[in-house]
């Protein structure tokens, strides 16, 4: 059962990684990257690495997403590719 959970999360991670790199709007790209970080946090909780999981939830998903959104706010929102 837990192996199926693992595979579902990994496939969703690959999908969100590709979407966040392909979308033209940089704010959407930052938010989808936040979703990617929370998915990998779920994966680590499932793999038994709880300390890595809550560090990722606080630092990876929270602070990285805030940094990216602040940069997009100070610069342009559209991307050419």
């Amino acid at each position, binding site marked *: 059962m837990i192996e199926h959970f693992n595979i579902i999360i990994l496939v969703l991670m690959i999908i969100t990684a590709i979407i966040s790199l392909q979308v033209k709007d*940089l704010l959407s790209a930052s938010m989808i990257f936040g979703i990617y970080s929370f998915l990998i946090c779920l994966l680590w909780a499932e793999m*038994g690495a709880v300390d*890595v999981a809550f560090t990722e939830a606080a630092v990876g998903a929270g*602070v990285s997403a805030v940094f*990216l959104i602040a940069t997009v706010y100070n610069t*342009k929102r559209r*991307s050419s*590719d």
Partner: protein
Amino acid sequence: MREFIENFVQPHFNYWAYVIIMMIGLWALIAKRNLIKKLIGMSIFQTAIILFYVSLGVKDGATIPIAPHHVAGDHADAHDSEHAESHDDHKAHPKPVADDYSNPLPHVLMLTAIVVGVATLGVALAVSQSLFKDFGTLEEDEILEQIKSGDYYD
């Protein structure tokens, strides 16, 4: 083909996904022109490497690496005079076996890697904001064009 998937892909799916995600990040670093997209690709690359290391510590049927409250040895010293009772304690709470817990060493190493990754992302975003102030754009090809034409000293 079906045998290949059942024997080779499904039991090691973490490693296959690690390779795929790492190559997605490398492709973004090379092929994307926007600097923010490049930095998102760099973060994806870093998480792929962390995924590889955490996958090394996983064992079948293992739980999280936290010892239970009553481990053997806690009571053995306290009840040293009462040999019979301490023997019973050993039976009730057997010594923890390493195979029951996933390996915590890669977790601790990767905890550092996550924090370093966020620090590099923050510095890189600050540098790209400063580049935007100087050049008015975040596209790599436009910045290179302005540097080549030499009109960035205004």
